[in-house]
Each structure stands twice: as structure tokens, then as C-alpha cells.
């Protein structure tokens, strides 16, 4: 496979790639054929003199039938193959492990059967089919992992589902592919495909997000906070360079005086930041919409401490 095809890391990927390859070969064939005649005729029948003889040909029924029937047959083959592969995508095996996915502006939240929750980082086991049961808290989003060749819109009305069996350990990008507003291009997540041993360790770990596996709890707090800043999606709304986003910038936030919607003023100290992460709507900074999700039960106290330490470094 050539390099423009992304790594294939699920049981469904090779099907999609095979159809793509088939259509690519046909397309290149027809494109070369058409270009060949376009260039060949242009050279051969270029006007050499003003009174050049031309043939009076108005059509040919046989050739019309040929170039109608051949593409029709090929198109039907492509249709059938595409449909067969699509059916597989729509029918998860009965023993698939279920994960609830909640999409909201602008993060992914995952809830596992054992009560664990994580934000923007999904943990699955290599070789074990997974079925995602997805809903949105606000507008339409779409869950897409290119390496798995799967995509499904996530709706605010009813549940949608998607399944795959990861076939390689590693970390793969999750993109939101339905435009959902200011933070759309930052609504990124990761699928961590773990070996059975690592997955068992993750299941036992106390940390909410499973940093015991990903590494991080052994880092200095500020560095860990920096990882969390991007892993947990803070970066979708809070910039580090002073640019105004959906939420206030983190640049110089720690220790800053913030004016709240009720007119009062607070200093952004440790306790204010902790409260604002756990219960964002408690003390809203004036000028921003109340859209931040509550991280109570999602981030541990240790993780919040790490984020606060990180904020102190952002002067």
C-alpha cells in the first residue's frame, strides 16, 4: 500500500481500502484513456490550414451503447461491493464491549462498563470488538477515526452507534467531522489501543482517566498539567498565547483579577480555579457563554492540582 493510505488498524479498514483500490484502478484507467484521446486528437487533428477537410460524423449508435453499458456494469459492481462492506459496518457482533460516548462542544467523554470515565482519551483492547453508543449534549458532531475507517454522526435526538475491532496497539486520532462551532477543529481525541495486559492494568487503575497506563502521574505536576491541558480538551477554548477564545485565555490567568457576571471581582487563585473546573457555572467570568462542561467526577483532585501548577507557569 502506498503512503497516502493511512495505517489500517481495525478489522473494517481493509475492506474500505480494497474497494478504494479497485475504484482507483478503474478511475486511473478511464482518466488515462480519456486524457490520451484528448491529447492524441488535439495533436493529430490540430488545424494546419484554414480549409482543412473534416469528416461529417454525427454519431454512432453501437458505440453509444458500448460506452453506456460498460460503465453501467462497473458502477453496479462498485455499488454492490460498497453496500456489502457497509452492511458489515452496521452490524456489530453480539459480544462487543459497549462504551457510552457523549459528545459536547467541544470534547468527547467516554463512560465504560466498570464505571470509569475519561475525557478525549478512549481506552480499548486490541482484538476485542467495541460498540460505541453515542449521543450529543448539544449540536450534531461526528466521530471519526481515519485509521479505523469508521465514522458516524453523533446526534442530540437519538443514539447512534458504531463498532470496530482494533487490530493494532497504538494511539490513533479521533476527529470531530461535523462542523460544530468555534472549537470544532480542537474537538480532537485519542483512541488508545492497549495490549490485553496493559488493558487489564488500566481496568484496575484508580485514576479516572487511566494515566497509570498512558504515563503521566509520575511526571512533575506542571508537566502533567500541560499534558492534561491538551488531552482533556482545555485547549479547545482556552488559549495560552493571550488570544481570546470561547473561554478566557490561560495566559497570566493565575492570580489575575476577574470580573464576574454578577459584577463582583475574584482573584483566580487555587480554590477559584478548582471550583471553576468542577462547577464552571458557579462563578462565571463576564463576557463568556456558560458552555463549559463540569469536570467533577472526570478529573481527579491530583489532576486538578497538576493543572493549577501548569497555570502558574503561564505568565
Amino acid at each position, binding site marked *: 500500500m502506498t503512503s497516502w493510505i493511512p495505517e489500517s488498524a481495525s478489522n473494517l479498514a481493509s475492506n474500505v481500502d480494497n474497494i478504494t483500490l479497485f475504484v482507483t484502478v478503474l478511475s486511473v484507467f478511464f482518466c488515462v484513456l480519456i486524457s490520451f484521446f484528448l491529447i492524441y486528437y488535439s495533436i493529430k487533428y490540430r488545424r494546419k490550414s484554414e480549409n482543412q477537410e473534416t469528416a461529417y460524423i454525427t454519431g454512432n449508435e453501437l458505440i453509444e451503447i458500448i460506452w453506456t453499458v460498460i460503465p453501467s456494469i462497473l458502477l453496479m459492481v462498485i*455499488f454492490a461491493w460498497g453496500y456489502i462492506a457497509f452492511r458489515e459496518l452496521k452490524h456489530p457482533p453480539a459480544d462487543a464491549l459497549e462504551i457510552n460516548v457523549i459528545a459536547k462542544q467541544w470534547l468527547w467523554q467516554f463512560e465504560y462498563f466498570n464505571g470509569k470515565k475519561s475525557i478525549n482519551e478512549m481506552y480499548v483492547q486490541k482484538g476485542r470488538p467495541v460498540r460505541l453508543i453515542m449521543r450529543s449534549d448539544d449540536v450534531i458532531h461526528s466521530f471519526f477515526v481515519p485509521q479505523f475507517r469508521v465514522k458516524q454522526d453523533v*446526534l*442530540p*435526538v437519538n443514539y447512534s452507534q458504531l463498532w470496530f475491532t482494533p487490530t493494532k496497539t497504538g494511539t490513533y486520532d479521533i476527529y470531530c467531522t461535523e462542523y460544530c*462551532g468555534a472549537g470544532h477543529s480542537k474537538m480532537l481525541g485519542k483512541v488508545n489501543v492497549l495490549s490485553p495486559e496493559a488493558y487489564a492494568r488500566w481496568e484496575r487503575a484508580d485514576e479516572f482517566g487511566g494515566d497509570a497506563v498512558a504515563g503521566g502521574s509520575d511526571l512533575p505536576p506542571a508537566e502533567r498539567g500541560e499534558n492534561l491541558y491538551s488531552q482533556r480538551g482545555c485547549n479547545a477554548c482556552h488559549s495560552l498565547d493571550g488570544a481570546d477564545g470561547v473561554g478566557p485565555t490561560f495566559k497570566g490567568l493565575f492570580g489575575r483579577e476577574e470580573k464576574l457576571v454578577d459584577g463582583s471581582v475574584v482573584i483566580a487563585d487555587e480554590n477559584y480555579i478548582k471550583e471553576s473546573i468542577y462547577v464552571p457555572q458557579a462563578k462565571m467570568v463576564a463576557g463568556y457563554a456558560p458552555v463549559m462542561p463540569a469536570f467533577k467526577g472526570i478529573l481527579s483532585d491530583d489532576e486538578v492540582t497538576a493543572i493549577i501548577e501548569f497555570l502558574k507557569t503561564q505568565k
Partner: protein
Amino acid sequence: MANGIAADSTYESYLAKKGFTAWALTTDHKRIGIMYLITISFFFLLAGVTALLMRYELLTPELDFFSTTTQYNVAFTLHGSLMVFFFIVPGIAASLGNFLIPLMIGARDVAFPRLNLLSYWVYLVGTVILMTALAQPADTGWTFYTPYSVETGTNVILITLGVFVLGFSSILTGMNFIVTVHKLRAPGMTWNRLPLFIWASYATAILQLLATPVVGITLLLLIMEKSLDIGFFDPAKGGDPILFQNFFWFYSHPAVYIMVIPAFGIISEIIPVFARKPIFGYRAIAYSSFAIAIISFFVWLHHMFVSGISETAAAIFSFLTMLVAIPTAIKVFNWLATLYKGSIEFHSSMLYALSFIFLFTIGGLTGVFLGALAVDVHLHDTYFVVAHMHYVMIGGTVMGFFGALHFWYPKWFGKTFNELTAKASWFLVFVGFNVTFFPQFFMGYQGMPRRYATYPEQFQSAHVLSTYGSWILGLGIFIMTVNLIAGIFSRKVPEGNPYKSLSLEWQMPSPPPHNNFEDIPIVTDWTYAYGKK
């Protein structure tokens, strides 16, 4: 081919009368056509500038040119809405259709000249509403998907109101053209002798008449939901957001063909003239326009394969999508066969027509990838779709439009442009377009989602290439525009029928007289009798 056309040298050209009211209140289809041409060209250039800004932002993965992501989102919303609703839908159909349909069928004007003027003014009112909306633009994308468009604080109402008003112009023009083609053909201009541009305009007019009311109603419902809080589409109010997508694409898929079928017509006119050959498979081309128009009403769900529709619906719509590829392929083969044993002259408009065949083939073939269900799941809402759509819309429609500009220019103005500069700008447009959009197919297959203000680093090299391409393309269009404007001030007067075309509009002086035909011509042969012995 036709008798009874006056070759009086002392005629009064349609351009002769000067003054504001002579234009603003004119019922002359040619003047209205020129007014459309100028207005849509303005919006095309404006929308092109927003595209250049977006491409500039995408040079780096981080946000650096715009100061917020919302500004980028506004830019792509403006780019899409302006291009689709203000340039490409009314574009060829209204500007070239108005100028050419009566001339090509041997009529003195369209069937309802005053209604025609009204259509233009309704269009202009729509654009004025939109220009007001520019002060506070929306950030929803040109598709206005609910519930985001209901929730966003940006000004969705004005922009959709503009599009709603514009719809009336489209409907009225469509109706006018249908009646014109039915009732005003010159004696002897039978259906099987009609120029293919007329067939294409006719098929387009039917689509405009039948499909546009649906988008009008949809946008009205959206406006009511936003202003009166009635829950049609927002689940928080008991509505269904997928219903909006169904309504929207029920119009917007046929609209794709409203945009591209007129270009098919243009190509079918340019190629026979410069190959000095009859069009190959006249009926196949004429009827395939109709086949496309009809099937295009039944493929809209292919925009929604990952929205959670049923497997059966997906299967049916994938099947119908494949069907629409067949008449499209037939057209390409017929144009190609027209070149066989011809005498080909590479006028700038012919270069656009030939590149149309090549680029539209790529646009059509990449559509087959998207029609195949399992592949669409992977490619939906990635840059692959962006590239496919631009290969059809620029590689198809805009190439056809540019070809038409260079082809009928002497007819419109009785002047000509610098042909060498025109060829040079064609070359820049062709190269720039491919450098911009070809890398996007690969980016899309690798997973780069569309409508991203910022993006993961692994896509940067492809984005940089694409942005460089957009500069070449922009330069090409800039030179072309300057060349065409400069042509109006040139003193060079072309021959009356510089390409030795057999079509009716070239059998009269350029620019045409105010009333087109002194006596209505009597048509004795079809338009494509090149080399007939």
C-alpha cells in the same frame, strides 16, 4: 443555415443607449444578461478573496492569520454562501441564458421581458440583504445545519433571508426560460435542431422551478424557528435536526446540477465550433441532460450516509447515485468523439473547454468513490469531498463559465481581448487549480476533516502545497479579469463571425441590434452542420 437575417450596417447596437434608467429599467434580455454578468462576477471575485484568506490561514497548523477560529468559520461560510447562492446558481443560467437563449432560438426577447427585469431586481435585493449581513456574518457553513444554526449567536437570519429572496429570482427566471423555449423558437427551429446550450438551459430551468421552492420553505422554517422559537429542527424544542438535512439536500443536490448542466451546454457549443465538426451523439447529450435532471431529484440522501439513516435507504440512494454517473460519462465520451477527424483550433475558450473535459472527468470519477457506501463512510466530511466538489464546481462549471466569457465576448461587446494574455491566464488557472485541489484528495483519504481552522501537523505539507496553488490560481484569475476588462477599451473590432460558427447568434452583427432580428429567421438545418456536403 438560416435565411432572413439582416446584415444592415447602419443598425443600432443594444449597447447604444446610455444612462442609468436605460439600463436599470431595460427589458432587453441582452442588457439584463450583461447586468447579471457584472453582478455575479463581482460576487465571484469577492468569494474568491475569502477563499484566498482561508488558504492563507491554513499555511500553518495553528491559528495565526485570523485572531479567532470564529473568524475562519465566518470566512468559509461566506465563501460557500457567496459562491453557491450568489454566483454559481444564478451564474451561467441567468447571465448567459438571458443573453443567449433568444439569440440562439431566433427570438426577439424572452417570453416575459418585464418579469425578467423583475427577476434581476429581486436578485439584487437578495444581494443587498446579504451585503447587510456581511456586517454581522453567520458562522454556520453554507449548509446552515441545525441545531447549530439555531443555537449560534451569529446572524443566521439575515443571510438565510437573502438566500430566500434570491430563490424567487431563480424560480421566475426558470419559468421564463421554459416558456421562451416552448413558444418562441423561430420557424424551423425544431427540438432536434436546438443548440445543446438551449437543451441544457431548459433542463436547468425545470430544476430551478421545481427544486428552489423547497429550499425557500426550508430557510423560512429556519428563520421562524430562530425568530419565533417554533421547534421544527431543534431537538431541545421537540424538532428533528435530520429533517433539516433532508429538506436542505432535496434542493441542494438538484442545485448541483443547476450549477453544472449549463456548463455542459457551453462545452457542447464551443467544441464543435473549434473542431469544425458536428457534435457527436446530439441526442445522447441532449437526453442525458434530462436524465441527470430527473435522477438528481432522487439522490439527496447520499449527503447523509453517516447521519444514521437506515441501511435500506442508504442502499437505494447509493444505487441511484451510481446511476447518475452514467449519463455524465456518456457526455464526456461524446465530447471526446467530436474531436475525431476534426480541424481543431486552440482558441482560449477551446482551451477552457478541453480542460473542462479532463477536470470534470476527475470530478466525476472521484464522485464514484463517494457513491460507494463503505468508502463514503471513511471519506465523508473530509478534504476528499472538498476536492471532489471543487473539481466539479471549478473544473466543471467555472471552466465552462470562463470558456463562455472568452467565446461570446466579441458577441457581447463587439470588441476583443488579447488572445495571448488569455492563453497565459488559462495556463495559470489550469495549473493553479490542480496544485490547489489535487493534494486535497490525498489529505482527505488520510483523514483531514473539512472546516478545520487548525489542524494536526501531519497534514501541513499538503496544506502548504494547496495554498501555493491557490496563489497561482488567484494570479491566473486576476490576469484574466484585467485582460477581459481591458478588452472593452480596445479598438480592435473582431469580424462578425470570427469562429465561422453556424449558430444563429453569430449570423448577426456584434454587438447585436436592439431587436435582435429584423425579420424572424427561418431555420433550415441544425446548428451543427459543420463539414456537411
